Each structure stands twice: as structure tokens, then as C-alpha cells.
């Protein structure tokens, strides 16, 4: 056919040959199939589908494909990051120009100007690059179906990033509507493709995208492997290297030569606060880097981030200190080195970051690992082994996210309104909502129309109106508020930070600002700022000259160890004390392991270590399953609950990725005799419910849910007092749901999320099964061991109690007296 010929000739003219997977993708695409392309970055995955669509277009219009203009939206390209959209648009436009095809390539994201939006409304470009949120903003417009009359293909790029998140659910829902529109308008079925890096569950990833009722999808794999060279930087003073910590600043002198010897380095940290600190410290140590160093993280002003990205492209920068915000596939050619400070906690994320350097197909990706505390070196050894064995994590898809569905239904209600029976059919065919029941659906509709209550004379609830089967929001105020609200699938109530004199710095968690006193200084986006006051949900600041500033710790920065890496880690401990190991990391750690062995024990992978240690803080019990912080949090709560049924006792609980700690003011009755029973699978479900209910997990999960479902009024500037009266914290709303509406689906969702995501219930089960056939080793070390030390000094805390509230208070009072 003509299209194939045009493209092959064009490529030949550039002395290029398509990769095999690209040809396969074109073929499948031309057959009208849907599916998933699996290829590493830097190998032209974009072209596998984009050129497919171009070939199809040339085939359909062999004579006038270079003339036809204003063809309407043909191809929608979903990207998870705004920064990616620009890059891809540029590449696509270049190709179209060279081929003489007069298609427009447009971008639609939160940054798109009003003028561009208006122009798009009149005439959609043939290709639209769009974020999941912006897709929903389109669906919130009057007459939205008109935009999609010619749409035949949707591509979800970097699908591995979206699956397993609520943004992925946004994509599923938007696709369900677009498929429904095609059916209503008697168009051929929509072609849907994903592009994904390798993850453990590619088949499932495709199912999520195509829906559980689609059975003709095809996975096209590029059999190409990126070459990665991982080097652990071993602390020069290994004996004195700290046992705990998460900043890794001690390694800074060893990072500087790497930066100096490279063209451009990306230095990845795991949290935003850590990136701020590293940025400042690098500047202090190497003032000559000024102008060639930049910071990039999710709380910074968009413009500044875009500038950093452009500068990276152009090779102006020597080093960029960044967080997950630069994980994704933008092609920064000048980057030849990546430094990872602290464990990335997962194989997939590490591969992704390594791939940021040496972006060309044949280049080797160089990545250096800098440990933030001694034991973390084992993680580097484990990562290396996991990479060799391609043990890449799965991303579990989100199920029954009622908050997102409520937001979506409201979106449809503010645009053209919706017929409940049509939308029900579309929604229940998505992967996320395949198990929705008619009762759930009725509850959701009622939540939008009557606020979840039977209509009563007194109630004044107002949101969506119902006439028969048709639902619509007629309030302009509510509609406007909802449109502003779409896309706030962010985890926290974030506050803007602005200079008194004007000028936007970035965003910060409300909770952080609320703890600041006027006059105190903090660091954001690499600047020292003095907090002046808050006004209209904005924190006003001025430049600070203070030497002492607080670096905000953003919530949720810490990612738990993945189960693949945990498994590898336990195997590495096996090797640790054997004299046979070849891993430089393990060799460097020999003295530390010897000390652990002398004081307590180094567990083999068929053992579980428990340490009892008494200090002036109280009685500690440390337990080391090496299963990641989340599983440990739950195991700790479960164990605490089970012990607390033996006797009234209160625990403070702490955990990290290696293990957890129970701390009490009384001796903890865990012995070799009862340990197995205390960690058994028996009655797991009911006892988990009981132990989790008494923690704050569900409440934490509810924060996101309340924001997404529109229960948190985020306000807009310059409005009246009555609007301020609409502010309430998610925690307060959680309380009133719990006390007055316990059957609320959003509340149940919070508990389910806590169960499945926060508690990783499935992984917990596997862990307990493993422990059941393991040997439990209980030691009573004289002092803190290298293993338990990081948990004690550097971890997150929680409480678990079986004592009566009144009794606890009396004890607290007695202790304070």
C-alpha cells in the first residue's frame, strides 16, 4: 500500500530502518487492532503507533493526503506528564513537515493558554497530546461529543506510569465514554493502544486499557535491552559511616568528582525535601556550580521546571537535583550520568532512572548509587541481582474507586448531562468498575442528587438534578467550581507560595505552613524564604537572609521497598556472612554484619529475626521481615493487637523497610513459644480489621478520596466569607461520616484502600505464609544493633492500644507528674 511505501522511503532517505517491533505495530494497527507496545525508552516507541496512524491516513487518502486540512481530531495521545507532551509534539510535527502532511499537532494540558483552548474548540488539531485530567476537562464542556466525531485512535503513552493510579482510572473512564460515543454515532470501534515499559503484569496492563470485555488485544514486544552499568559508591570511611539516616550528605564529597567528570548529571533523591537539601549543599561545596546547577521537583513553579527541562535539553546544565518529577521519558540527550541518592526501593523505578542517561539506543546508561546509611548498600547489591534476573515489579490496577467515579459523573453532569442507563453500561465495562453492583450505582447517583439521604423537608442539598433517567447540574457556580476542581488528583491540600511583591514560587503542603510562625524561614525551590502570612489559601513570603531555615518534609515522599527487591535483599543477607560473596557492597559491609552477628544474629532467608532490647525509653521489640514499610506497618499493628489481647498494653509502633519496632512501657510478652502463633495467618481477616480500625490508615487514605470526590472545598481567591465557611479538613469529614453515615461508600473505599494498597494485604499474607515455615530466632542484645538502629532513630510512628482511654490518660498524667 502507498502509506507503507511513503514511510519506508522517507526513513531510507534518512538512512534509517524501522525496528522490527515498529513494523509489527504498524501491521497490527492497520488491521484495526488494539493493543500494547512494550519497548524501552529511546528506541522510537512513539513512532511505532504515530507512524501507523500516518500510514493509515495516506492509505485512505493516497492522492490528496498532502492537501487535506481541517480533518478534525484523528488521534488522541495521552501522556502522564505535561513536559512529555511538548517533546513528543515537536518530534511529530517534524515528521509531518517532512512528509508534507498538513496536520496540526496540538497540546492540551493545564498549561494550555485560553486562546489556544478557544482555537481548539473551533477547530481541533488532527493530533492532540493530552493529560488524563485535561481529557476530563474536555468532557466537562458543553457539546463535547462534537470534538470526537472523527477520532479513531487513542494512545496511552507511558501507560506503566498511569496504571495503578487514579489518573489511570481517569483514562479508563474517558475511554469508556469515547467508545460509547462511537457506538452511539455508528462509527467503527475506537482503536486503543498503550505504550509501556516492562512491568511484571503487561497482560493485565493491556486488559485495563482495553477493558475486560475486549478479547482481541495484541502485545508487541521490542526485543531490545538497554545496557545499564550500576556502580555503588562505597563510603571511603566505611567504619564510620552512619547506621541510620536518609539524606546521604556524608557522601557529597564522593558525588562531586562524578559530577565533574560527566557532561550532565541527574541526581535523583527520593523526596522533595532531600532534593532541596542536596541542592543547597552542592552549591555550598561547589560555588562554581552556580548557574550550572538546577533543582527540579513537583512542588516548584511550572515555569521554572519547564526552564530547567529546556536547559537540560540544550546542555546548559551540569547537574540537576531532582525527584520522581524527572522519572519520565523526556529525552535529555546531554545527560550521560545518573546518581541515585538512597535506595530507589524498586527495580522498575531504578531502571527508569538509569534510562535517563545515555538515551540513544546503543548508549550505556551509567548510574551511581549513593547509600544514605550503611545497610542500604545491601539494597544496591540486591538491585543489581534483580536487574540481571529481570525481576520487575507489577503495577496493580485500581479497583472500584468511587471517588473518581463520582468526579466523572459530576463532569458529565456539568457538560451535557447524562442518561444514567447509557453511562452505567459504559462504566461497568471498564476494568476498574467491572464489579460495580446496581446498588452501588444507585448509591452514587443518590449521593449526587440528594446527598445520600432520603429526601426530607428540611434538607437543602443541591448538586445534580434528576429528571427521570437524565442527570444534570444546572447551577453555574457548582459547574464552575467542578471544572476548576477536575485534575486535582493530588494527594494533599497544597498551598501556593508567593512573594509579597508578587511572583509565584511553588506549592507546599498546607500542614507545613500551618505549623510555621510568621518570621520563620523555610526552603522551597532552592530559595530561602521568610514566611509572612497566609491569605486566600496562599502563603505570602519574602526573601530570607536567615542562615537557619526549615526544609519542609512533604508527605508521601517515602516509597516502600517493593516485594521483588525485598526478596532479593533477604537472599543477599544469606551471602553476607559467607566469605564467598563477590559483591563489593557486601564485602564493604562485612564488619557491620560481623557486629550484627556478635550482638544478635544475621538472619538467613529462611529465618525471621526478633530482637528484645531494653532502653531508658522502654521495652523494645524489633522484628525484621524485610518486606517494606507498608507491610511492616500492618504486621506491627497486627502483632501489637494480638499481644494486647493477652494483657492491656499500649505500644508505640515504628517501621522502616527492613523491619518494625514495638515499644512499650511494660515488658513485651513475645517468646519462642508464642511467636509463631502471634504471627500466624489464623483469623487474619477479622483481626486485621480490628487492628487497622484502631489505627489511622483509613483516615489518611480518606484525604485523597475526599479531595477527588469533591468534598473538600478548595476555594478560589477573593470570595466571600460564606465560602470560607465551607472549609473543613478531610479528617473532620471522615469523623462525621464514621459517626453519622457509616455505610457511606467513600468511607468504605478509604478502608478498602487502606486494606489493599496501604496494607498490601496480599503481600502480608505471603509474608505470614513464609514466616510460618521459617525459623524464628529471638535474641536479647545488650545494646542497639546495626539492624534495629535505623528503625529506632529514623522512622514513622503509630500507636496501638488495648487499654481504656481513661486508663491511658491516668498513666500519661502519672508519667508527667
Amino acid at each position, binding site marked *: 500500500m502507498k502509506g507503507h511505501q511513503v514511510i519506508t522511503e522517507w526513513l531510507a532517505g534518512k538512512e534509517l530502518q524501522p525496528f522490527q517491533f515498529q513494523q509489527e505495530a504498524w501491521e497490527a494497527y492497520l488491521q484495526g487492532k488494539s493493543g500494547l507496545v512494550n519497548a524501552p525508552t529511546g528506541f522510537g516507541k512513539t513512532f511505532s503507533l504515530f507512524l501507523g496512524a500516518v500510514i493509515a491516513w495516506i492509505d485512505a487518502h493516497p492522492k490528496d493526503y498532502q492537501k487535506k486540512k481541517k480533518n478534525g481530531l484523528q488521534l488522541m495521545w495521552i501522556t502522564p506528564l505535561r513536559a512529555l507532551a511538548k517533546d513528543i509534539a515537536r518530534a511529530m510535527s517534524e515528521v509531518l513537515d517532512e512528509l508534507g502532511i498538513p496536520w496540526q499537532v496540538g497540546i492540551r494540558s493545564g498549561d494550555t493558554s485560553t486562546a489556544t483552548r478557544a482555537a481548539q474548540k473551533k477547530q481541533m488539531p488532527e493530533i492532540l497530546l493530552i493529560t488524563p485530567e485535561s481529557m476530563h476537562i474536555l468532557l466537562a464542556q458543553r457539546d463535547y461529543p462534537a470534538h470526537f466525531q472523527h477520532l479513531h485512535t487513542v494512545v496511552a503513552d507511558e501507560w506503566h506510569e498511569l496504571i495503578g493510579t487514579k489518573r489511570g482510572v481517569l483514562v479508563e473512564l474517558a475511554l469508556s465514554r469515547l467508545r460509547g460515543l462511537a457506538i452511539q454515532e455508528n462509527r467503527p470501534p475506537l482503536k486503543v493502544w498503550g505504550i509501556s515499559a516492562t512491568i511484571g503484569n503487561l497482560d493485565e496492563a493491556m486488559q485495563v486499557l482495553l477493558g475486560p470485555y475486549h478479547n482481541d488485544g495484541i502485545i508487541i514486544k521490542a526485543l531490545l535491552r538497554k545496557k545499564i552499568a550500576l556502580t555503588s559508591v562505597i563510603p571511603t570511611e566505611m567504619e564510620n559511616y552512619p547506621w541510620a539516616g536518609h539524606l546521604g550528605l556524608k557522601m557529597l564529597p564522593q558525588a562531586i568528582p562524578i559530577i565533574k567528570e560527566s557532561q550532565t548529571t541527574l541526581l535523583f533523591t527520593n523526596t522533595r525535601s532531600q532534593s532541596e537539601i542536596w541542592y543547597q549543599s552542592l552549591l555550598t561545596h561547589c560555588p562554581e556550580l552556580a548557574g550550572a546547577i538546577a533543582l527540579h521537583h513537583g512542588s516548584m513553579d511550572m515555569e521554572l521546571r519547564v526552564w530547567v527541562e529546556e536547559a537540560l535539553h540544550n546542555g546548559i546544565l551540569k547537574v540537576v537535583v531532582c525527584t520522581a518529577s524527572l522519572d519520565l521519558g523526556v529525552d535529555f540527550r546531554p545527560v550521560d550520568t545518573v546518581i541515585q541518592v538512597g535506595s530507589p526501593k524498586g527495580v522498575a523505578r531504578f531502571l527508569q532512572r538509569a534510562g535517563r542517561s545515555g538515551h540513544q539506543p546503543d548508549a550505556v546508561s551509567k548510574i551511581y548509587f549513593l547509600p544514605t546509611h550503611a545497610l542500604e548498600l545491601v539494597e544496591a547489591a540486591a538491585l543489581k541481582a534483580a536487574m540481571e534476573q529481570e525481576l520487575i515489579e507489577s503495577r496493580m490496577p485500581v479497583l472500584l474507586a468511587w471517588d473518581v467515579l463520582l468526579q466523572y459523573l459530576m463532569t458529565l453532569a456539568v457538560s451535557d448531562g447524562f442518561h444514567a442507563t447509557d453511562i452505567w453500561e459504559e462504566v461497568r465495562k471498564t476494568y476498574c468498575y467491572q464489579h460495580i453492583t446496581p446498588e452501588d450505582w444507585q448509591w452514587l447517583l443518590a*449521593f449526587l442528587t440528594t446527598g445520600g439521604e432520603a429526601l426530607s423537608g428540611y434538607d437543602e442539598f443541591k448538586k445534580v438534578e434528576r429528571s427521570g433517567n437524565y442527570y444534570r447540574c444546572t447551577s453555574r457556580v457548582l459547574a464552575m467550581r467542578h471544572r476548576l476542581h477536575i485534575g486535582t488528583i493530588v494527594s494533599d491540600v497544597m498551598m501556593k507560595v508567593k512573594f509579597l511583591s508578587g511572583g509565584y514560587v511553588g506549592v507546599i503542603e498546607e500542614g507545613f505552613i500551618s505549623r510555621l510562625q510568621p518570621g520563620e524561614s523555610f526552603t522551597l525551590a532552592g530559595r530561602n524564604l521568610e514566611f509572612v502570612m497566609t491569605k486566600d489559601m496562599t502563603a505570602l513570603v519574602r526573601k530570607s537572609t536567615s542562615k537557619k531555615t526549615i526544609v519542609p518534609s512533604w508527605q508521601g515522599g517515602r516509597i516502600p521497598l517493593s516485594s521483588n527487591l525485598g526478596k532479593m535483599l533477604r537472599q543477599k543477607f544469606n551471602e553476607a556472612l559467607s566469605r564467598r560473596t563477590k559483591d563489593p557492597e557486601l564485602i564493604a559491609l562485612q564488619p557491620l554484619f560481623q557486629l550484627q552477628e556478635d550482638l544478635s544474629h544475621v538472619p538467613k532467608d529462611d529465618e525471621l529475626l526478633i530482637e528484645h532490647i531494653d532502653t531508658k525509653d522502654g521495652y523494645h521489640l524489633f522484628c525484621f521481615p524485610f518486606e517494606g514499610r507498608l507491610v511492616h506497618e500492618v504486621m506491627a499493628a497486627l502483632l501489637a493487637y494480638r499481644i494486647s489481647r493477652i494483657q492491656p498494653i499500649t505500644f508505640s509502633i515504628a517501621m522502616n523497610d527492613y523491619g518494625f519496632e514495638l515499644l512499650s512501657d511494660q515488658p513485651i510478652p513475645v517468646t519462642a513459644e508464642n511467636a509463631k502463633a502471634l504471627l500466624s495467618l489464623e483469623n487474619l481477616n477479622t483481626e486485621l480489621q480490628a487492628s487497622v480500625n484502631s489505627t489511622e490508615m483509613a483516615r489518611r487514605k480518606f484525604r485523597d478520596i475526599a479531595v477527588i470526590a469533591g468534598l473538600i472545598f478548595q476555594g478560589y481567591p477573593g470570595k466571600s466569607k460564606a465560602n470560607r465557611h465551607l472549609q473543613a479538613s478531610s479528617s473532620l469529614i471522615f469523623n462525621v461520616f464514621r459517626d453519622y453515615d457509616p455505610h457511606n461508600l467513600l468511607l468504605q473505599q478509604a478502608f478498602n484502600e487502606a486494606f489493599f494498597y496501604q496494607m498490601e494485604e496480599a503481600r502480608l499474607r505471603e509474608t505470614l505464609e513464609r514466616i510460618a515455615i521459617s525459623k524464628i530466632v529471638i535474641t536479647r542484645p545488650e545494646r542497639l544493633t546495626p539492624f534495629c538502629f535505623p528503625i529506632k532513630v529514623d522512622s514513622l510512628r503509630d500507636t496501638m492500644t488495648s487499654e481504656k482511654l481513661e486508663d491511658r490518660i491516668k498513666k500519661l498524667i502519672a508519667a508527667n507528674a
Partner: protein
Amino acid sequence: MTGEIFVYQSQHWHLLPERAIYWQEEQALIISDLHLGKATHFRKAGIAVPTGIVEEDLLRLQRLITRLQPTQIIIVGDMFHSRENSEVQYFKIWRQQFPHIIFHLVVGNHDIMPAEIYGNLQITTSPHLTIRDIHFIHEPCEDANGYTYTFSGHLHPGYVMAGPAKQRLRLPCFYFGRHCGILPAFGDFTGMASVDASPGEAVFVIAGQSVVRAQ
């Protein structure tokens, strides 16, 4: 009577776990920050918080009244959350059970309804109130203001108790500062703000059904 009788400034203050103070010498019930109408205010704006909160709050108040038989009720501000809505009507009907009891409202920053509505509800309002040289004003004062003592609300105080083994607990509290005492919020749909008490100041926390002196 449960709770704790605190003798202070030569008066008997019954600190009640229902989040109210009964002033024995004046036979007055003192409460603060009811935020009546808050749930409905949210619901009118499309935010589906549950109904039934106002009923529970007023039932609790009703039980206190029938048990203690006060002659007057002093509300130290933020009795109503925002503009008039159906919960105000609900309160009006509820109010008719106690026509003989005086309701004094010391106006708070949330009390923005027009004066005649308070009149219709048989609530007397004033920016502050003084009885036996005890002063009532919504927002807490930091310095001495010349009165024997002052009671305020506004803050919704909670007290953090820390103990051995890094235990931590936050509970609503009655806080008696040097010059000014702060009442816990009476309404259930209200948050909490932690107070730091200086040495020598009294703090009583509400622990379930009892009131316990924490400091």
C-alpha cells in the same frame, strides 16, 4: 453529676464531658462553638456531609438542660456557622421546649446572621458579657483585661498528651490560662487546635465519659 468540679476564682465550675461548663453560682450552662447549620451550609454547596449532626448536638444540649435545669445558657460565640438555613428552623422548633431559659449569645466571628433572626429565636446577643466580674468574649485575650477572669471559645482547643514509649493522644479540653479560659467546641462537626499550656495553668481533657485534669 459526672465531670469535675473546679473551684476557681471563688466560683464552682462543673466541667462536663458533654463539652460544657455548669456555673453553679449562676445556675448557668456555658458552651461555645456549636456551629449550628454547618452541615447544611455544606450540603447546600453540594458537599454531601451527613445530616443528623445538628440533631445529635441539640439532643446533647437538651439532655444537659433537663438534667441541670439551668436558668440561663451562655454561648461564647459561633453558635451558628454561617448564613440562615433550614437548621436554624430546626433550632427554632427545638428552642420552644425551653421558653423560660435565657440564651445569651456572645457574638463570634461566624455569627453573621441579621439581628432580627436572633430576636425571632429568642436569643439575646452582645459582643461580650460580664456577670460577677467574669467576662465572656469569643476570641481569647492574651493579656489581663481588668476582669476577675475571662472565658472564650473560638479556638476549639485540644490537648496533646505525651507519655513514655512515645505515646501521643489529642483530646478536646478545657484550658484555664492565666487570664482567660477557653472552652472546647460543643458542636460535633468542628475540628480541634492544639494548645500549649504554660506551667501553672490548668488543663482538663475530656476522655470519653469523664473529665480528667491533665495539668
